């Protein structure tokens, strides 16, 4: 009897989708749209993270040393800094600094190389490890370094860092807001579409109940349908995202080359696919649960 019922549910669910494909196509389409929106938001979020940590990779701390610091002290400091921060420290001689500066300045810089004496000091540049890349740790670190004997000044591009942090926060917020809007509205549309799908079959539900079906019996095929719809739309969404990413990624990379985007295939992780599948299932199922509940009072 249970096997008979299960088989009946499966037949009814698939039969319902087969017999009246119209409403199901709509439900699947809107579910798939929601999932594509979710996928895009996830990919964009991952990209923003990658971008921020890539830019963060440029966070450097420069320690300018006092004039006349002995060479062995410079070496010692370099070693101490590397050990202390866990990053990479590198000593920059006044000559190297002047060369860089004149290069940076372009036409103006040519004049610098014509100077008799090099006015620039020795310095040590430290590329910081990720855990020290926030403003607070940098400030603390700079404070301690400034107290050292041979240190003249410490520079860590506070401005750029603040902007970067603000930008990353802004982008994250924007993507969360955009995602929330897309998601909420599609949830409304999806559950409404499913309700409409069931609404168009209220006659069937009424008759089932009149011939002695329990609420559970009436509900089961609809829930199954919702799950099948969720799965189908997840598959659709995965394909659509894949196509989109494959098409868009090289173009975006060409245009925004300096941001070094990963390849399209890397953007669609297995994890994302699993998430899409589970989310699709959950949305399809919960959409039907809500919808069925509304129309079961016959």
């Amino acid at each position, binding site marked *: 009897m249970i096997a*008979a019922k299960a088989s009946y549910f499966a037949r009814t669910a698939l039969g319902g989708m087969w017999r009246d494909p119209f409403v199901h196509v709509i439900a699947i389409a809107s579910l798939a749209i929601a999932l594509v929106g979710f996928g895009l938001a996830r990919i964009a979020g991952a990209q923003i993270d990658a971008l921020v940590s890539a830019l963060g990779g440029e966070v450097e701390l420069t320690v300018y040393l006092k004039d006349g610091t002995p060479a062995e002290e410079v070496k010692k400091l370099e070693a101490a800094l590397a050990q202390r921060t866990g990053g990479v420290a590198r000593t920059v001689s006044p000559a190297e600094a002047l060369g860089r500066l004149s290069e940076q300045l372009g036409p103006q810089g040519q004049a610098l190389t014509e100077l008799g004496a090099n006015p620039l000091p020795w310095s040590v540049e430290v590329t910081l490890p990720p855990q020290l890349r926030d403003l607070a740790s940098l400030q603390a670190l700079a404070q301690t370094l400034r107290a050292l004997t041979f240190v003249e000044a410490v520079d860590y591009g506070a401005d750029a860092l603040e902007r970067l942090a603000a930008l990353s926060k802004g982008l994250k917020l924007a993507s969360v807001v955009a995602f929330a809007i897309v998601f909420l509205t599609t949830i409304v549309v999806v559950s409404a579409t499913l309700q409409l799908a069931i609404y168009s079959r209220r006659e069937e539900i009424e008759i089932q*109940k*009149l011939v*002695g079906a329990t609420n559970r019996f009436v509900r089961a095929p609809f829930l199954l349908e919702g799950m099948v719809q969720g799965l189908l739309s997840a598959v659709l969404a995965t394909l659509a995202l894949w196509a989109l990413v494959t098409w868009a990624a090289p173009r975006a990379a060409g245009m925004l080359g300096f941001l070094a985007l990963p390849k399209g295939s890397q953007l669609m992780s297995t994890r994302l696919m699993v998430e899409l599948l589970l989310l699709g299932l959950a949305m399809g199922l919960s959409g039907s649960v809500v919808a069925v509940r509304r129309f079961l009072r016959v």
Partner: protein
Amino acid sequence: MIQMFHVTKAFGNDPPTLMDINLDIQKGEFVFLTGPSGAGKTTLLKLVFLAERATRGQVLVSGRNVARLRESGIPYLRRNIGVVFQDFKLLPNRSVAENVGFALDVIGTPRELVRQKALKILKRVGLEHKANVLPPKLSGGEQQRVVIARALVNDPAILLADEPTGNLDPALTVEIMDLLCDVNARGTTVVVATHDASLIERYHKRTLRLERGTLVSEERGAKAALLMVQG
């Protein structure tokens, strides 16, 4: 099998559709229910399978007071009652056999058995050749016979037939009435709501007559038929 004590049914604030109904239908009985259009016949039948609930009074089915039955108990009550609906209630997008099998699917009967039983009962109402047709492609009388088949397919203890021969020609009417009598002879309690005086005359069964919501007479055969035509 079916008992009513002081049953009243009112829709909203309208004057009551049924007023102070008392009746007792024995197990295995065959009863006609008659009365003019709008007298309350359909409403009375609906109280039995709980498509409507009585406003006041007790309705007992197989000795259980269904007025107190909880929502979740209704399906189990209905599985013992076959109903021929006056407005058919067939699903337009399921085949005739599927429509008939509906009442069996609901109780978890295996698929092959459902189809087998559906075809058997369709044969008895003369529609085995229409088993795979969709209801909108049937004539009025054919649809009516599908509804009768659906009501009978799971051998119910009670059969409520609301105007089961309204769309049938005289010959078929006799066939269907003979089928109902046969079902009754095998133990099913049968209640038939009808306007057809010739049926009431010919079959000579206990006949309850409703008028404007009250039971006004209880006769048999010709006498009951006479009351109808005079009505």
